């Protein structure tokens, strides 16, 4: 069974992942997404690239970065049309690349998120600040991505921070700040591996310093549900005290391997084997 790894750049984790896929029974080809192009006309749509062999491909492992959303979305749509399994579904990159849309999607599916206000015009800040409890998280978005993020402890400091921004904004997120350590969860299918990042002196530890932690079964379910709502079978879900803060379509597999002692490359390849029918259920080869 053939699997394509389509990635933006070569990363240190890719050879390990390729090896895991091969050991599971896949024939693997690794290609740069820049080599791929899409064509459509009345005869149909096609994916082209040097020796890709899409017609004989059963699965695609995709790591593309959210800045490539405009390319990735029609690519994912074409994979779905061809019934080629990919760990992210069509629509996922639209949801994940727009944090405002991600918040509404999570809330639409009743996933626990902190109370959040979304708006564009800073003239609304004063009125909204009166309705929110502090400290609060103030995030601004400009030119299609996050531009700045601040924790503000009062309406006065919020307005002061806002006054300092001199460029036009695409969107503003003002949300209740959930103070505490962050559980950074790697979701792979229905499995969840969690690392805890300490929140100390107003700063969040880097992932490299995180420690392994055990989530409640309810929090595990929430993490899997949040990943699925965002169209991902594999994702990183950031949570704090049971609230979902953010979902990303990528897991830093090397760090999780090191911290948890588990082999997440094997977990990823097992998920692909299950989804493509290479393996019906865990351990059972077709």
């Amino acid at each position, binding site marked *: 069974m053939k699997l394509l790894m389509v990635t933006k750049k070569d990363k240190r984790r890719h050879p390990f992942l390729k090896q895991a896929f091969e050991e599971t029974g896949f024939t693997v080809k690794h290609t740069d997404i820049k080599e791929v192009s*899409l*064509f459509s006309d*009345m005869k149909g749509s096609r994916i082209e690239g040097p020796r890709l062999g899409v017609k004989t491909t059963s699965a695609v492992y995709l790591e593309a970065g959210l800045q490539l959303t*405009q*390319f990735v979305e029609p690519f994912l749509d074409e994979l779905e049309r061809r019934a080629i399994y990919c760990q992210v579904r069509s629509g996922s990159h639209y949801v994940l690349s*727009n944090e405002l849309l991600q918040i*509404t999607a999570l809330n639409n599916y009743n996933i626990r998120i902190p*109370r959040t206000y979304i*708006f564009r015009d800073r003239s609304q800040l004063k009125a909204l600040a009166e309705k929110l409890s502090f400290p609060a998280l103030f995030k601004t978005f400009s030119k299609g991505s996050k531009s700045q993020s601040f924790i503000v402890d009062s309406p006065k400091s919020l307005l002061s921070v806002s006054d300092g921004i001199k460029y036009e904004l695409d969107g503003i997120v003002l949300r209740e700040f959930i103070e505490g350590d962050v559980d950074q969860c790697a979701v792979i299918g229905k499995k969840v591996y969690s690392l805890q990042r300490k929140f100390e002196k107003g700063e969040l530890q880097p992932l490299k310093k995180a420690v392994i932690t055990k989530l409640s079964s309810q929090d595990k379910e929430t993490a899997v549900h949040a990943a699925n709502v965002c169209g991902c079978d594999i994702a990183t879900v950031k949570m704090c005290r049971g609230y979902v803060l953010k979902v990303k379509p990528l897991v830093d597999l090397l760090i999780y391997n090191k911290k948890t002692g588990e082999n997440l490359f094997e977990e990823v390849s097992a998920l692909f084997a299950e989804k493509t029918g290479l393996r019906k259920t865990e351990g059972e080869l077709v």
Partner: protein
Amino acid sequence: MSDSKKSLVVIASSHYNKKNNKVLIEEAEKVFEKFLFAPINKISIVEEKGKPKLLFRGQNLLEFDACYPRFGSRDHFMGEAVLSILDRSPVYTPVSLRGFQLSNHKYYSIKKLAEEKLPTVLTALSISPLVVEKISREFSFPLVLKLISGFAGKGVMRVENGAQLKSILDTVHLFEEYIATQKYVEGHSSDVRCYVFGEKVLTVKRVGAKGDWRANISRGGTAKIIRGPKAMQEAAVRAAKTLGFEICAVDFIQTKAVKEGFVIIEANFQPGPFRKFLGNRVPMEMMQYIRSRLEKKK
């Protein structure tokens, strides 16, 4: 509101055209008992406990019977969030989040239309300028390059030869937008726009300004209502449904290059009313259609 009285909110873009919206408001006020005009930059969204609110001056827009969002790609950040909420609310809306995303993506929309066997021209999408050069060999010159997030024809370039293509691709900053490459179809500076209101179609011929190969009114072109070919009108309705619209405009070029005699160039999420040439006709049709859908819903 009571059964017979109906309410509508139009969510406009943050930089809305005042004159175009004046006629829309005039027509809306004739048809709806309660009408509200809300620019998207004045709206706030409250997300909590699975129950979103869309607020404008203290009113929850999700309490209206209908909502007609009319904003463009410049408002896509807020726009996608607003449409996602409307999609899952009981408020009737003649557009959708999917339609917004597709119509703002000139390759993706053509892809979905082509899959429905609607007449389209060969279109390609890639990330790397090197790949675009390779693609161009499949198209022959002239060809059309389209910026993916472009609108009102400003992001559309006709490329006459390889040297010109290379020069454009060298402007790598532009390329961060992604470029769709499309086979050029001679339209003799004119095209046909089909405004779709459910199953009803209003067909308009647009002629471009002298010296411009494009037919955009915003670039100095003219427009007049014509009796459109039935096949084209049917294609417009199918295209709208495919992309997730009940109200939109579908642009065609008439050509002998395909057996249908026309190809679809693009669909528009918030079509302009061509007020100078068509008066209030388009906003009137829009408002009457939304009202009729609410009556059917009842």
